């Protein structure tokens, strides 16, 4: 019983984390048809940025400690704006219209570049920003002790999901964006500024990736290469759910989260294997993921 509960809670925490990563990735893919490998670097940059900001904030010591949490979204927005704009306006813009596979390679090169940018700015020593993690204390659920911070993660993740859903379905801009997703050329013909939508989507997607890193930073030591593993996890999530589908990313992350938590508690040997195993299994039966429509073959 306790084990089941632990699997559920661990699974939800893990799911909320990978969901944030998958959300940005699937959003960018849905609108721009770019599978963004550089998303992992944005995650890493977000983590570094938040560690720096938190360190800076608590080092001054004269402000209320609770306000330190504001540094997390701040870091995400900052990285999303700077890195997102630089990548989209500086590089991707010149590549639009190429094959999806070529775009995949382009983002792979951006990933390689950003990995070293992080090293150049922050060096290779590990960084810690433990303050926000301990500040909220712990909570006990049936003998299981969890840091409250972990539940904050779930809340943030849910908020992001609701925000994106509301933005897409209930606002004018969102509806225009859906039009762009469905038919880029037709939307252009109707006078929608598709280029602007691309830029804005990329920045928002990048900010989600950076947010994923920013809120994880207090839980771990931030070292070079933390983005590398995240990319394939986010891949797994969005591919299971179906590329470009936000509901899909949600279901995908819940599946990945629960499966991994179950593996950790029941059979730790298969922890890594099982995630990709599920991904391969889903792909074997639904080649385009659970929530994606069929592709039209082009002649």
């Amino acid at each position, binding site marked *: 019983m306790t084990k089941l509960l632990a699997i559920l809670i661990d699974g939800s925490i893990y799911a909320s984390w990978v969901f944030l990563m998958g959300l940005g990735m699937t959003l960018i893919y849905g609108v721009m048809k770019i*599978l963004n490998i550089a998303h992992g670097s944005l995650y890493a940059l977000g983590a570094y940025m938040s560690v720096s900001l938190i360190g800076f904030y608590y080092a001054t010591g004269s402000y209320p400690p609770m306000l330190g949490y504001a540094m997390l979204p701040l870091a995400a927005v900052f990285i999303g704006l700077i890195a997102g704009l630089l990548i989209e306006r500086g*590089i991707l813009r*010149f*590549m639009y219209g*190429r*094959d*999806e*596979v*070529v775009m*995949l*390679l*382009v983002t*792979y*090169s*951006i*990933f*390689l*570049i950003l*990995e*070293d*940018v992080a*090293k*150049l700015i922050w060096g*290779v020593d590990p960084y810690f920003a433990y303050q926000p993690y301990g500040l909220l204390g712990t909570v006990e659920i049936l003998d299981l002790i969890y840091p409250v911070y972990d539940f904050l993660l779930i809340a943030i993740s849910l908020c992001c999901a609701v925000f994106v859903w509301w933005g897409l379905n209930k606002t004018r801009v969102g509806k225009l964006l859906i039009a762009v997703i469905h038919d880029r050329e037709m939307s252009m013909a109707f006078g929608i500024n598709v280029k602007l939508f691309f830029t804005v989507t990329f920045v928002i997607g990048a900010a989600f990736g950076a947010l994923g890193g920013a809120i994880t930073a207090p839980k771990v030591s931030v070292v070079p290469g933390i983005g*590398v593993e995240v*990319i*394939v996890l986010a*891949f*797994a999530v969005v*591919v299971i759910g179906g*590329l470009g589908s936000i509901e899909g990313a949600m279901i995908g992350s819940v599946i990945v989260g629960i499966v991994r938590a179950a593996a950790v508690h029941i059979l*730790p*040997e*298969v*922890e*890594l*294997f*099982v*995630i*990709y*195993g599920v*991904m*391969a299994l889903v*792909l*074997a039966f639904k*080649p*385009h993921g659970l929530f994606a429509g069929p592709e039209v*073959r082009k*002649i």
Partner: protein
Amino acid sequence: MIIPKENTLRTLTIGFIAVLVFGFVATDWLRFLVQMSLATFLVVLGVMLQMRAGLVSFGQGLFYCLGAYIAGMAGYFWGITDAFLLLFAGAAACVILSVILGFLLVRYREIFYANFSLALSMILYGLLVKAEILGSTDGFNVPHSTFLGFAPEGETLKISIFILTIVVVYLVAVALHRYLSSTYGYMGDAIRQNEIRVEYLGASVRSLIHKVYVIAAAISGIGGVLAAISLGHVDPEMAYWTTSGEFVFVALLSGTANVMAPLVGTFLLELLRTYAFEYAPYTWQMILGGTMLMVILFLPGGIWSIGAKRRTRN
């Protein structure tokens, strides 16, 4: 030896002899560098073969790693150290696995192909990382190789492995060149350009892609075995997606027009890696990424296309 008349084969043969001679006079580290680039070259050939059919495999490390682990395990657990037997076993294992996986993979194109191949190689990585009997993340050492009962040590062993690598790579490259100039080889190009037309012409795209996948796997497996023998060590990192990414990088950098193209790219990469660790440890990935962007933007045919353009102009 008779030097063949055909352009590519002639260059390959002359290069083969030159490298062989070079191996006897070169310093240890340089010879090792050539050896490792040649092992990588085979895997890149596998990636290139798929790229010619318009398929980007982000998981070629699967077969590279499988070949290497088969070679390592055979020596480590069963005491089989004969290099020829290892090469055969590694290639055979990759062929068997790829025939099975091929049935799944032939249904995918573009990024889905890239994704699925990536997932498959990450499965192997996930398994190996947790396999304590195989040394988990550290991997394990591969015993010294023997050659049909001949068991050299020290300098002789190094030279023997070097010669083996060169000969095997030469044979594979010649065979692949033959394949690429055959009808099947050209069909790969046709698939990339328009697979529906290929089907209307009466060929089965799926079975062609399946063939390409299996051949690529076998070659990569051989590359893996050679790497394991040369390095004397295997670890799960070989199946990690960044390793596969490097293979894609080289294939893209070199171009897919000719079997010799990846030779240039692999050697450049190995050389860059060797020096970058010393002189630019924090910027060498950036150099790789920047180069790749430049190639995609300005040289879609890869480095090989520079020479090719000049040749057609003449």
